[in-house]
């Protein structure tokens, strides 16, 4: 689909999904998701994923946990894990409820079992913000830094335009820079994509930087780390069609990923 044919359609999301585990990026994902839902008049769906691996882990007799708060080791039980997950789920639901009420956004919330990505794949929202479970030992919630840009993979598919528009809207409302990622590999040559991106920016009056990237996950991770991205937008009508390893991105990027369908 050519960009000209889709540019005027202005694909809008009617459902925005926020999916999170126990993640320090959850709050930023909620803020972004509420903002998008309010701006597009969409409904907000919140899901909290209870990781089955955690429950199973707690039942192994020889497993211990090392606290990131104190560095102390302790054995833990399945009950402890389940309770901790319930507390976090309630916190996330409360945050969504308050934010949605303030922004006058219709919302729903549910707690699901299973791996995060699989749970998101089962949802049908046009925009899905995923706050994964990164290995985080340093300062929390760095995504809140106003200096960190919103990145979007420049793709001229319907999902791609939806993602670009959502990323652009977020960048504008949060006062962040917009980073348009131009993949080196793909059906369209990167030079053409760069021209499309420039034309789109000019047409929409959007300021943003264009960053060429390689098409693999590792290159993507390196590029995003270099630019300290606060949120990455990727187009993926189906998660299975995604050209990148989403699980690895969530783990290593330390920022939410927004999937546009």
């Amino acid at each position, binding site marked *: 689909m050519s960009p000209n044919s889709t540019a005027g359609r202005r694909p809008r999301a009617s459902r925005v999904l926020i999916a999170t585990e126990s993640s320090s990026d959850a709050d930023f994902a909620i803020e972004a998701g509420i903002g998008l839902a309010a701006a597009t008049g969409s409904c907000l769906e919140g899901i909290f994923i209870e990781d089955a*691996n955690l429950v199973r882990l707690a039942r192994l007799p020889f497993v211990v946990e090392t606290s*990131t708060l104190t*560095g102390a080791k302790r054995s833990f039980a399945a009950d402890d*894990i389940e309770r901790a997950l319930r507390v976090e789920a309630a916190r996330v639901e409360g945050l969504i409820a308050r934010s949605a009420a303030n922004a006058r956004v219709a919302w729903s919330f549910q707690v699901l079992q299973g791996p995060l990505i699989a749970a998101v794949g089962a949802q049908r929202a046009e925009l899905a913000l995923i706050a994964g479970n990164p290995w*985080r030992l*340093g300062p929390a919630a760095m995504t809140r830094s106003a*200096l960190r840009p919103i990145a979007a993979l420049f793709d001229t598919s319907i999902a791609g335009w939806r993602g670009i528009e959502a990323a652009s809207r977020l960048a504008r409302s949060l006062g962040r820079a917009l980073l348009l990622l131009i993949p080196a590999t793909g059906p369209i040559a990167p030079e053409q994509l760069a021209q499309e991106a420039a034309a789109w920016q000019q047409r929409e009056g959007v300021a943003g930087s264009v960053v060429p990237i390689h098409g693999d996950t590792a290159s993507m991770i390196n590029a995003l*780390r270099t630019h300290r991205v606060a949120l990455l937008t990727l187009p993926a009508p189906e998660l299975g069609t995604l050209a990148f390893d989403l699980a690895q991105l969530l783990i290593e990027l330390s920022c939410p990923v927004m999937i546009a369908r």
Partner: protein
Amino acid sequence: MRVPLPGSTLTPETILLPVSQLRRSCDLASLPFETTDALDDLAEPFGQERARQAIEFGIGIQRPGYNLFVLGPSGAGKQTLLREMIGRQAVTQARPPDCGYVFDFEHPHQPRALRLPAGRGAALRADMRRLVEELLAAIPGAFDSDEYRARIDQINTEIAERNEQALSRLTGVAASDGIALIRTPTGFSLAPTKDGAVLTTEQFEALPPERQAAIEKSMASLQERLDQLIHEALRSRRKQRERVRELNRDVARSTVGVLTEDLKQRYADLPEVLTHLAAVEHDVIENIDDFRRASELQGQPTGGPDMQPPSFRRYEVNLLLDHGQLEGAPLVFEDNPTYQNLLGRIEHIAQFGALITDFTLIKAGALHRANGGYLLLDAHKLLTQPFAWEGLKRALTTRSLRIDSLAQMYSMVSTISLEPEPIPLDVKVVLFGERIWYQLLFDYDPDFGELFKVAVDFDDEVESSDANQVRLARLIATIGRRQALLPLTRTAVARVIEQRARDIEDNERLSAHMQSLIDLLTEADFIARQRNHREIDREHVDAAIDAQLTRAGRISEQMRQSILRGTLMIDTEGSKAGQVNGLAAFSVGGKLFAHPTRITASTRIGDGQVIDVQREVQLGGPIHSKGVLILSSFLAARFSARNPHSLRASIVFEQVYSEVEGDSASAAELCALLSSLAGIPILQSVAITGSVNQYGELQPIGAVNEKIEGFFDVCKARDSDVHAVVIPRANVKNLMLRDDVVEAAGRGEFQVYAAASIDEAIGILTGVPAGERSPLGDFPAGSVNRAVAERLDQYSTIRQSFGMPPPIARGSAGSRGRRR
């Protein structure tokens, strides 16, 4: 009434006072003006030269302890004179510095005193307020800048990346052994996996034992590395916080430094201010988060004590004294000298059920306001306020002003309070009050003499010279102009001058009491205006004086009516032995009046005692008793030198049911005794007043004018023919009798005799000469003394014939001794 005095060269005429001596009229020729409009103001104090010199000395000498105590009766014009003189001196002196308190950042409960050149305190206070406002705007701005965020981001990212890379490496190593590093809600854990899922217990137990052992061994090794990694992460987190703090300090230092630099230059000449500014700068940097939070919390509802927005009051200047508009040294009069009004106080405010305070709630006292100048205090008010006198003494002794809470000092409250730094004190305190206060303080407070070395004693009276009369006229003119009164004619001034003499009962002197003068002039002005006059004339002054007497004359009139109606039995005609008209004076509301009172004496054979009935029933004061003892001593000495004193006598103030005090009736009592003993009646148309000494000499008494007028009024009302009063000769100078009394004397209807001795007095009272003792010791036949001596000899003979023991030579009533 003209009584010949046989046997004596003295005749009544020699002691009868001429009319001219009954009142000293002001000589109009000595008043060279028509009305007081023609007179200049009186610049100097009237009749207070001694006080003026003392005040000049007191305010001139700048040494510790040379504070002033101005003593004199109320209304003497002490305050007016003090304010004028001190006011003139104060404007020539330098302005004292401004004074205030600032927060002491090292000792928060001990606010620091700050002294600044006059006028600069207010500027500093404004500058500090502006500084805080600017800090509140600049600091959040600095921390909201892109530069600051970038540096924070840089610090955070650096640490986060290092940790994440370590975790990533560990994850890779673990994965190669089939082990996953899993994030739990509160930490990290290692677990064996298969196809991305953690093994269940059953799956793990189904593994071959050697595989289980390998996994456990691998997990143990990985766990050790995980522990090290997390500990390293915790350490790096601490470093990160330290780096953020240091960054915050740097940002704060540069932001605050820019804003305080201007102030430092402005106050470069004041080291104390520079020290304070440096402390403020340091405190702002240390508490930079308060400034960052302030803008966030602005407008939010406040909760409990822990949710209050940060306070910046500690950067304020509590300016106690702003002398920017002052000219010269301060002159402060504290009308309500409580401890706190004098020494300052620390106020508290209620917050969440507790009383709290800070240095901005320190309030100045009168001593603060007067520091560097003069403080005027009413001694009576000061001494009747709890702790105020002690507080003032402490301040003057230590020469410093220390604010202590009374409640704190006496452990009445346990609230934490402040200990403000004492302020150096350099003040001249001027106390003013009645003489009794000065005397009491001098007698009972050993510190008083050390702290109030200058006594300013206001004179009550001045000599009635021509010059002083003119000065008084100028004072009247001055008061008239200041009080917007009508001008006084020359005759009115003369009348006022006469009344000034009457007020102090001395025709040779004038009262210096200011308030009574102002009152008289004000009231005369009122009457003159009522009568549509443009000037105050003598008649108006007379009317004002009459009105004063009338207003205060209810009781006087009641007593006069009692006499006229016969309730109080006073004879004003005929004669009676042993009965005399004495004259008693009373004071009601500051006004004196007098009326005659009947004094009787009875005599009989006895043991030498003279019984004072008033004293027996405890209605006689000590001075009265002293008079009775003296007269009995006189009797014994004169008439019983050779024989036992075999007299027993009783003296009574008839119809007197209240305490009798004073000895002004002792001459009357002695005359009654002599009359009783001699059997010679006393003329009831004559009254007598005066005290007597052991030699029979008459001594002066007070209220002589009122006493004469009191008897005159009764006799006049009864339309008696001729009546007279005998007074001590020493009282002639006190005569300033009313016009109507003087006029009656001019018509021969009333006489005033000035007797020097009891012999002269008894001669007037009885019409019989007293008689002088001959060289042989006898009194002339037909004299009062002869009759008395014969009667006493008779008593002695009779007493001896009855074989009574000789009396103990005590010569007094001795009733108190008997009671003992």
